[in-house]
């Protein structure tokens, strides 16, 4: 493998020979950026980072034994025990997106670093399930501390339950993940380290829900791990209105609820204590483009020799446009990157990995940008048409997936309708293969059978009621996989050949989230989730307005009186009742069976017409970054790079990453 030093040498040489850019090789003028990490020399036996040792020596931090819990969580490094030190360079496209949430995450339970990921111990070292899944008892590790040194106890969890979940301003509706079958659960404090969660019906997915950042992370409105001692000063129930107003004057927000959620934003507020391996110390400011995270001196995980994790001292996030991010990655300037790497940049990334000293790991990807007809279309004629299996089969047969695969992924992509995927526990071999062959004759036969026999003067098919049939396909730039608009453009061409007229329309994400949940559209192109979909129900079961293939049925599920809702019938309703049952089933075998029934319905009905799936998700890692999983699943549900536990990653030459 090439030495990462060569990049620097290369810079210097090019700087010398070309005066225009000579200033870039700043080391010429011995004017390096300040070094923030200490030497990693005394590493071998050290139980903590040298940065922390010096803080302990100067009396600013208690010794390690007092910072770790009685029974710290032991992590077996993926390759080898590491060295302390280094700053990890990261990138992101969106100023507001919090890629840092993945590496700041800690959970009552956490995913095991396996495929498939399972719920494993975290802050809670063990748990019992009582009364057939109606009661869960969690035992927290004793001596856990927030990043500011304050103990983390059951009281913090009770604060989340009493002051957040039950507060109508913060959570107008009690969090769904704590209300199986629509019946809100209850927290009961047993002692400082024991918490009971009680439900009226068995809760089948609670353990998995607790691992999922989308439901319990800081970004969610139903975050579970809130530092009560810190947040109390901003909570209505603990301070007088005058105090609150004074605090809000310093940090204006339109309402108290917004103010509170700003205060617990781990991307903007560097003061909030966390439980994860790193914490924000310098947020993005003004027109600056970088934010910095430092190690949490109280982190509660150690390696097998009892050395405190994380190994790496800091992370630095730089906000930049997508093209620049790709170039920086291809230049070896990003030390770890999964998200925001666009599929289009793959060739450049693969080509440069030898010369620029980074590696590209091929993780399992989810994205399979699919065509989703609105089964709950407001127009009854189109709704009836869309609900005919022959119609969907005809559209599917008309798509030349081989051509798409060759053009987009050099033939490496997978061809399937989304019905989970091989890495998911509900997956069954052979699913998602109906109507997948490219067969124009069969497509025409199916479309005729769906009642589209009449054609207009332009040769295109007419609606069953004789009107002109024109479908509008919508999409926006999702940021994973291939650009959805190109999928729509392929479909447009293929469908034209069988007499179906479709126009493609790209929208901004903001307008997308305005319009789409109302459900007044024909079809969209979007990549659905295919692993751990049971904890993120909307992909296969119409449970809300973002169930793209049946948004109005989803709205009805949440609220029967929703103005944008529509009562589902037949199989659509069956999906919802099956899911209600799945959530409230404690028996794993029965739960798997219910999941299979849901997927079978999708397999038979092809409500989501798959195209071609991304062959892999590139993970960019610096050449000397160790303990990176060669293969894992890159998914929001397993928290992207967190699937490889960044706290146990280390740089072989930390001094080069300062």
């Amino acid at each position, binding site marked *: 493998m090439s030495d990462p030093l060569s*990049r620097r040498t290369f810079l210097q040489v090019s700087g010398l020979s070309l005066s225009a850019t000579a200033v870039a090789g700043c080391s010429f003028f011995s004017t390096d950026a300040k070094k923030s990490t200490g030497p990693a020399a005394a590493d071998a036996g050290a139980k903590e980072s040298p940065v922390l040792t010096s803080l302990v020596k100067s009396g600013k931090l208690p010794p390690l034994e007092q910072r770790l819990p009685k029974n710290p969580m032991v992590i077996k490094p993926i390759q080898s025990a590491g060295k302390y030190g280094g700053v990890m360079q990261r990138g992101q496209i969106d100023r*507001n997106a919090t890629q840092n949430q993945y590496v700041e995450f800690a959970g009552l339970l956490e995913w095991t670093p396996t495929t498939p990921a399972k719920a494993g111990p975290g802050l809670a070292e063990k748990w019992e399930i009582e009364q057939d899944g109606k009661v869960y008892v969690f035992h927290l590790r004793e001596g856990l501390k927030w990043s500011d040194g304050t103990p983390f106890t059951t009281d913090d969890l009770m604060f989340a339950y009493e002051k957040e979940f039950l507060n109508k301003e913060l959570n107008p509706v009690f969090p769904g993940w704590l209300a199986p079958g629509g019946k809100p659960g209850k927290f009961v404090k047993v002692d400082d380290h024991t918490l009971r969660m009680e439900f009226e019906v068995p809760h089948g997915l609670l353990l998995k829900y607790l691992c999922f950042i989308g439901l319990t992370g800081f970004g969610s409105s139903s975050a579970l791990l809130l530092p009560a001692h810190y947040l109390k000063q901003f909570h209505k129930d603990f301070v007088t209105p005058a105090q609150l107003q004074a605090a809000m004057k310093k940090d204006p927000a339109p309402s108290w609820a917004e103010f509170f959620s700003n205060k617990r934003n781990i991307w903007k507020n560097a003061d909030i204590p966390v439980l994860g391996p790193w914490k924000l110390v310098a947020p993005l400011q003004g027109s600056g483009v970088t934010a910095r995270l430092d190690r949490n001196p109280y982190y509660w995980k150690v390696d097998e020799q009892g050395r405190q994790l994380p190994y790496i001292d800091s992370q*630095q996030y730089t*906000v930049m446009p997508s*093209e620049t991010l790709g170039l920086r990655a291809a230049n070896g300037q990003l030390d770890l990157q999964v998200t925001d790497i666009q599929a289009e940049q793959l060739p450049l990334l693969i080509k440069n990995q030898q010369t620029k000293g980074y590696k590209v790991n091929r993780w399992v990807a989810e994205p399979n940008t699919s065509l989703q007809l609105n089964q709950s279309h407001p127009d009854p004629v189109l709704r009836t048409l869309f609900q005919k299996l022959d119609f969907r089969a005809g559209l599917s047969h008309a798509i030349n997936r081989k051509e798409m695969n060759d053009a987009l992924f050099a033939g490496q992509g997978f061809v399937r309708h989304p019905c989970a995927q091989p890495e998911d526990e509900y997956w069954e071999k052979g699913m998602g293969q109906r109507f997948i062959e490219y067969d124009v004759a069969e497509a025409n036969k199916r479309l005729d059978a769906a009642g589209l026999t009449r054609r207009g003067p332009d040769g295109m098919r007419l609606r069953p009621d004789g009107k002109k049939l024109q479908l509008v396909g919508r999409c926006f730039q999702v940021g994973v996989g291939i650009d959805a608009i190109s999928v729509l453009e392929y479909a447009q061409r293929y469908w034209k050949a069988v007499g179906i007229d479709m126009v493609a329309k790209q929208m901004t994400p903001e*307008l997308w989230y305005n319009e789409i949940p109302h459900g007044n559209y024909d079809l969209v192109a979007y990549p659905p989730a295919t692993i751990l979909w049971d904890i993120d129900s909307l992909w296969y079961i119409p449970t809300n307005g973002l169930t793209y293939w049946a948004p109005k049925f989803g709205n009805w599920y949440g*609220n029967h009186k929703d103005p944008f809702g529509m009562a589902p019938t037949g199989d659509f309703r069956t999906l919802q009742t099956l899911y209600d049952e799945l959530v409230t089933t404690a028996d794993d075998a029965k739960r798997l069976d219910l999941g299979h029934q849901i997927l079978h319905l999708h397999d038979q009905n092809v409500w989501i017409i798959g195209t071609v799936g991304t062959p892999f998700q590139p993970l960019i890692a610096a050449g000397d970054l160790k303990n990176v999983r060669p293969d894992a699943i890159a998914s929001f549900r397993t928290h992207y790079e967190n699937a490889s536990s960044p706290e146990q990653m280390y740089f072989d030459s930390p001094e080069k990453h300062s």
Partner: protein
Amino acid sequence: MAGYLLRRLLAMVPTVLLISLVSFLIIQLPPGDFLTTVVAKLQQQGQTVGSDQLAALKAQYALDKSPLEQYLRWMSNIILHGDFGQSFQYNKPVATLLGERLPLTLGLGLATWLIGWTVALVAGIYSAARRYSKLDYVITALTFLGLAIPGFLVALTVVYLEFKLFGQTLSGVMSPEFEGAVWNLGKLLDVLNHLWLPVLVLASGGVAGTIRVLRANLLDELHKPYVTAARARGLDERKLLMRYPTRVALNPFIATIGWTIPALFDGEVLVASVLGLETTGPLLLNALKAQDMYLAGGIILIACVLTVIGTLISDLLLAAVDARVRVGYAGSGK
């Protein structure tokens, strides 16, 4: 002159109000508002928002009022309290957001303007005085290229070439390792190394136009009798050029100074987006896309006010340098 100035100042008030009203209404035109996005996000997290909660949220953001009422509220807050409203997207006061972005925006704008004009004036005068010389042809060719190629394309190309040839990626204001570092020679050089590109790209488009117009104007003037007369008196050729025809040829630029001020403020949207510069341009673009109306409105309003002020400055400067305009003012003042 004083009377003229006063009348101009008074006329500015309704102009600005009218522009602000129109821009506010245009921002309101697209269907939906930021609140729908908020609701959709809640739904995405598995929550359903009831109609009473929706009403409460609407009242909180004053979205239940008519657009005119929202406008009046917005304007009176600006005038009375200097409060531009709240950005929904960033959850911060608009004034704070603008304050954060202004130093870089104005610094970049001024640098671009100064460098652009210096280059343009020298090149334009040279090109006219030495018409059809070799260098004139070179300048002409370059200006046509500069006019024809959009700035963001130049920016993209230069960024890619930098990567390809020198293994660097230039974007932002400084390299990540220098952010938060103490100022030293290294940091200064690093910032300069990042800023030459945007300044060059931003200046290139404007420079080309300025050179062409200056060249044409100057060529018109060079053969007028007053130039011949001055030359006949034995005035040094260089002095002659600078003292008479150039001054006259500059008139159109002074008259358009007013437009460069708002251009400093929002003119570099595309280039700044491509280069990852966090100035007010990309802020406006995002605000419009997200229907963050107080933020977009605030930026547009400021740009309008700056245009009006700039036009006034142009008129005054024009009067200062050109006697013909001054005489016109004197007449109108009576």
